[in-house]
């Protein structure tokens, strides 16, 4: 039987505020264990949480960027469960009146645009971190660091509109891009500031009911999201094909073994007994304030991509790659401001710049070759001062030394030789030294000229203008 895959994602993102959601402790990542804690975030008796304005602003901004409706009246609730990373034995979260509802975002997979609806965006506090001595199942005790407890989180819940692991990845990438564009989160999956859980079920193709789902946890990278979901599709298909039933349960993705495994002990915890948080009063947002935040939203990835395609004639692929992160798109816009030709800048950005960023594991914000310096280099190339091959060498030197292109070209004598007199001397020597290639060429083997051009380039250390070399060689044979 053919099955349809049904996936909904729950994404948690840590907001980049200075202080925690309900107390003044710092949210800084990587501090020594239990140094960013106070009576409020440790859940000591008798304390009162006070809500951080910035969290509300970031939540509204996110809701608007995700095309949500902002609820005029919103409140916090207690989600009760026992786990040592939660010192109060409840998490302050939002239940029936979240800050934002009914949004969507559009993704593109295999050239097709799909709209994924967003059920809700709600605000909550993060939990602490458990450090296990040995494996989680075998260790006799756990150590707890409460620094992360109370760091503001948004939970963004999609409708079960996602139909494949590829779509799930595209959704997550788009969501990450939007969150970075609106500057509310770092979205570093490796530091846990963007985390993803997935609900996944299968149903016979064409059916409208929902099959029994499993809840997938520990999807800590884009690759894990994709591989974990692909595995789960296969597993559930196999269960159904064999006439079995999928069990509703929480499963964890085991990256090392490449499988999902049942987390039996978590099942019972699903009765969260939510009730309104008596220590926090409701939130009523002013529509004027909401409109003000809407007006200040930056240009979002879709709009920016459309601009690069329509105003700068970039291909849909190039525009998509460049706008997939705000930093990359800003870099590109800065090259335009510095006078770059759009297509040339895009080629460099997708080529040498991306290659070097990947090789040195560097973010585009920290790129040692600034947009302005890159434009200087491309201009030397346009003017014919240096050859395309030399330009790559110069770029590498700019990357490692931080010097500008003109200085490197001057210091290392890399100016392209277009002067025919200087090139002719080299060509004559090459012709004299390679009679066989010359004979081959004259016998009609056009390819032989490539070898001769190569020899001339080698002797001029890549500085000869290849077009001039080609022309002069043909004249002389």
């Amino acid at each position, binding site marked *: 039987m053919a099955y349809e895959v049904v996936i909904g994602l729950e994404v948690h993102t840590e907001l980049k*505020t*200075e*202080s925690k959601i309900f*107390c*003044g*402790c*710092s949210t800084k990542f990587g501090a*020594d*264990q*239990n*140094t*960013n*804690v*106070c*009576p409020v975030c*440790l859940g*000591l008796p008798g304390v009162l949480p*006070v*809500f*951080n*304005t*910035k*969290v*509300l602003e970031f939540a509204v901004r996110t809701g608007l960027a995700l095309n949500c409706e902002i609820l005029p*009246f919103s*409140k916090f609730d207690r989600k*009760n*469960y*026992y*786990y*040592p990373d939660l010192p109060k034995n409840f998490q302050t979260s939002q239940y029936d*009146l979240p800050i934002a509802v009914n949004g969507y975002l559009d993704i593109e997979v295999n050239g097709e645009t799909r709209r994924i609806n967003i059920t809700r965006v709600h605000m909550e506090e993060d939990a602490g971190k*458990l*450090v296990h001595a040995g494996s*989680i*199942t*075998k*260790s*006799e*005790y*756990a*150590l*707890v*660091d*409460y620094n992360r407890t109370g760091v503001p989180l948004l939970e963004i819940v999609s409708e079960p509109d996602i139909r494949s692991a590829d779509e799930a990845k595209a959704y997550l990438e788009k969501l990450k891009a939007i969150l970075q564009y609106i500057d509310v989160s770092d979205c570093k999956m490796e530091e846990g500031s963007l985390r993803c859980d997935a609900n996944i079920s299968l149903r016979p193709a064409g059916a409208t009911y929902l099959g029994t789902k499993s809840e997938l946890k520990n999807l800590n990278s884009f690759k894990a999201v994709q591989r974990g979901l692909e595995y789960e599709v296969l597993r559930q298909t196999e269960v159904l094909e064999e006439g079995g039933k999928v069990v509703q349960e929480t499963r964890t993705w085991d990256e090392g073994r490449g499988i999902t495994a049942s*987390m039996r*002990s978590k099942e*019972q*915890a699903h*009765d969260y*007994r939510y009730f*309104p948080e*008596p220590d*926090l*009063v*409701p*939130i*009523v947002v002013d529509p004027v304030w909401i409109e003000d935040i809407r007006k200040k939203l930056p240009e979002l990835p879709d709009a920016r991509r459309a601009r690069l395609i329509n105003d700068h004639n970039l291909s849909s692929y190039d525009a998509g790659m460049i706008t997939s992160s705000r930093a990359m798109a800003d870099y590109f816009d800065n090259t335009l401001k510095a006078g770059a030709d759009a297509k040339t800048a895009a080629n460099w950005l997708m080529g040498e710049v991306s290659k070097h960023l990947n090789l040195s594991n560097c973010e585009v914000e920290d790129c040692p070759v600034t947009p302005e310096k890159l434009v200087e280099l491309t201009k030397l190339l346009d003017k014919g001062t240096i050859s395309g091959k030399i330009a790559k060498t110069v770029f590498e030197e700019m990357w490692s030394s931080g010097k500008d292109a003109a200085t490197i070209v001057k210091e290392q004598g890399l100016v392209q030789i277009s002067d025919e007199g200087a090139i002719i001397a080299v060509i004559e020597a090459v012709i004299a030294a390679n009679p066989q290639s010359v004979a081959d060429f004259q016998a009609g083997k056009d390819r032989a000229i490539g070898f001769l051009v190569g020899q001339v380039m080698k002797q001029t250390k890549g500085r000869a203008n290849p077009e001039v070399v080609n022309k002069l060689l043909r004249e002389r044979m």
Partner: protein
Amino acid sequence: MKITRKDVESVALLSRLEMDEAAMDKFTGQLNSILEYVDMLSKVDTEGVEPTAHVLNLKNVLRADAVKPSLPRELALSNAPEQEDGYFKVPKIMEG
């Protein structure tokens, strides 16, 4: 709604409370009489009344996003039954 012995067991488990048979029976009876009493409220006509989100007539109590000093770690850990290396030490979590 009647609270059964099974409900009390389940709530006790969720709350990590251990209790003997006698206590279980006692709480089943007490919880039922509390709920019966509170059930009087269901006689009130609440048609068109907004659910109460908070008993105080307040909204938007907010603070600026500013960092304040946290507790010194020794103090933060001073009530912990067990600690190790600057961490709170707790019994193992998952029953394998």
